[in-house]
């Protein structure tokens, strides 16, 4: 009784070709859909561009793999489902060394390539450029404050950056861990008590976005939000000059605030 059942379960070339065709079409459609989706907030830094491209390439690898798994699973369920009353077993196939080598090797090559590519992207987005603006960022429960040591601006509640020029953030915390994140820039770094952490961003367009605290920091974590404003270089210089003038009084206030923290 079992032999005929085994013959029934044999899959001929035409069926395999059909399955392959369905898989290829589904992969193409899937990749197209995945790439068409507007995943990210608007690209507003050089890093955003690189990260979004990396994301697209991962999707191009991931969708076909998912489609492959789904196609084989669904095909198997439809094609090999037990008919009512069928009590036989499948053929005793214990493995296939060639196949197993293939599905070790291909994923290995894919993930290794992705790792190398990620490393290259990471080096690029973190590279230090000439002529930086340096901003000291301090997180405390539940607000950010900013200082521009090279410009003589000791304290500001608003973050203002010049467009197309790299800013190096030196991030500290006055109490617990926070995380400095502007989704439009894609860059994020924790503010850690006892450490100064660094991240670099080169904004590529003017505009105003939210600074989000991404690390749970207590009751006010969800509302620890401030604005970053990216402006043209002239406007930035004007703002710095204004702040520097205010600095006399503002600096005192900032200083006492720091002591209090």
């Amino acid at each position: 009784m079992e032999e005929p059942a085994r013959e029934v379960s044999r899959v001929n070339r035409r069926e395999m070709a059909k399955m392959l065709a369905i898989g290829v079409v589904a992969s193409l459609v899937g990749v197209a859909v995945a790439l068409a989706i507007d995943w990210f907030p608007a690209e507003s830094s050089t890093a955003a561009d690189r990260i979004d491209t990396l994301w697209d390439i991962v999707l191009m690898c991931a969708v076909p793999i998912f489609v492959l798994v789904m196609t084989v699973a669904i095909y198997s369920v439809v094609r090999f489902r037990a008919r009512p009353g069928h009590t036989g077993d499948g053929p005793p196939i214990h493995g296939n060394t060639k196949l197993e080598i293939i599905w070790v090797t291909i994923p290995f090559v894919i993930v290794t390539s992705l790792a190398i590519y990620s490393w290259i992207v990471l080096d690029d987005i973190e590279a230090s450029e000439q002529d930086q603006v340096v901003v000291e960022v301090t997180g405390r429960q539940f607000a950010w404050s900013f200082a521009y040591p090279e410009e003589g601006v000791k304290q500001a509640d608003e973050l203002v950056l010049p467009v197309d020029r790299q800013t190096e953030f030196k991030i500290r915390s006055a109490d617990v861990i926070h995380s400095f994140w502007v989704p439009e820039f894609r860059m994020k770094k924790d503010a850690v008590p006892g450490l100064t952490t660094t991240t670099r961003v080169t904004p590529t367009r003017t505009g105003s976005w939210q600074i989000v605290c991404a690390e749970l920091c207590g009751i006010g974590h969800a509302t620890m939000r401030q604005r970053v404003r990216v402006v043209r270089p002239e406007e930035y210089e004007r703002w710095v000059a204004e702040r520097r003038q205010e600095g006399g009084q503002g600096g005192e206030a900032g200083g006492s605030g720091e002591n209090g923290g």
Partner: protein
Amino acid sequence: MSLAARLTAPGWWRALVSLPIGAGIVVAGRALYGWEPLFDGDAITTVCLITVPLAFLIGIGCFDYWFRWASGAPTVPEDHSNHGAYSWRDYFKVNTDHKVIGIQYIVTTFAFFVIGGLMAMLMRAELTAPGSQFVDPNTFNGLFSVHASLMIFLFVIPVFAGIANYVVPLMIGAPDMAFPRLNALSFWLLPIAGIMMVASFFAPGGAFATGWTAYAPLSTETPLGQTFFTIGVQFAGASSIATALNFLVTIITMRAPGMTFWRMPLLVWAQFTTSLLVVIATPFIAGSQFFLLFDRALGTDLFSPANGGDVIMYQHVFWFYSHPAVYIMMLPGFGIISEVISTHARKPIFGYRMMAFSLMAIVILGFTVWAHHMFVSGMHDWLRIPMMITTLLIAVPTGIKIFSWLATLWRGVIHLRTPMLFALGFITMFTLGGISGVMLGMVPVDIHVSDTYFVVAHIHYVLFGGSVFTIFAGIYHWFPKMTGRMYDERLGKIHFWLSFVFFNLTFGPMHFVGVDGMPRRVADYAEQFAALNALISVSSFIFGATFFIFLYNMIASWRHGPRAAANPWRAHTIEWQVSSPPPVFNFDEVPTVVGGPYEYGVPGAVHAVFKGEKEPAGTGPTPAVAHRPE
């Protein structure tokens, strides 16, 4: 029973009288130092959180045998008086029968699953719209912290221990676990941990609200509720470690004759590798939480940067456990899926040895990836690259498992029963979770999406679509064995399809809001995320409600379901060769293993035989079907 007898015999009464000890210690200590106030609520609570559970364990009788032995009183090594359950009351006593303990584990953990699930419902109610709806931010932070802690420490990890407790000794042909009394103690540590975590809501200042990760220094500064987590985790961890040791010794020393490692069912392999992970990794979370406790209660400065403390160190120690912990929460599920797919597709597992090797590979690689949780934490930059590479490489052994299951399905005779449906659902959901895991592993992507809803989506795809689906698969698969009854197949299928659809509608959209910039662990969010969050919340309520289909099915079937045969799935592994439910001591005679566990389709092949059984003629060296004479 007289009052005196009640108070001295092991049980709940004796547990009650020994409770005030801890408070006494604190007050006496403070009096000796001359400290004011004499009655310090925080100090008393902290000490009582340790002494009350210990008093309870002693009271209920977990240590009676060992105390008698240590004091030289006569003991009976083969004392089976606490073995087997003959009424529902026996489930509320210290019991040494692995099958009773297995049921105790499963029922207890599902109770905490319901509590944790209800907390999730409350969070989704709050997140239905931006702004504040039902709970204040502190309560919200408490809800997600306790939700995660319950789901991880009181559900996924111990429910696997429960299923394995029931099944593994039967599978390897052993009469019980190696250390039945330790097994009982392991179980009774669990409800203590769970009750402590839930009770933290009643502490002044509210429940612990620093996430299940409890990052210092936030966790050293928050109110008393945090201590409930810090100490609760110790009990859950001790339970985990003791069970894992028990499994290791049981699997290494108590396999039936003929059961070589390469003849072990893959669930046994999975439990073996998981136990290795637990034994090596769990002491690290115990350490991390003890350090927190020292900082909180004794005034040490381990995580106080102003006094030379190091807060990054906390994260390294914490994740050195908590990353392997995700494999502790997944490998047993891999084992269950292998049993279910092979049995219900009637085919041998494709690439059995590679399946076992890939488990070992995951154990080893699993210890080399922890810092991928810390890519933006401010740790040394160089450490990110090796951790990224190892993280992505874990996709290889995981891929081996997915492809081998698919190849097992291929040309099988697939019976789409409920366990099989959950196994198939698991494969698809876990593949998605694996893909988002690879994305998270890539440093540049992670810099953007770490601590966002993308992470929330990912962990629920691997822990719910992954682990919990395997748990459902396992519960349905072994329900006939554990209860002696059949579950309702129609309700099971409804449960699967509703879960599957609404699982995806709940957690799928979280990928989008996360990448788009919504951070996790927030009670309030920007207007732009409102539409998708409303969809997520509505789906989650329906998703939550599907659980009650499962609950009804389990309870009704347990009471009134049709009687189950010894081997309703015609499986080959040994647990199916004894009656449903199995006799108190499992086997009247020790089985002998004569072949692999999944020899479906091999004419006349069996996995194990019982002595006295006639070998059927004409089948060559491997004797045929082993049915226990009933």
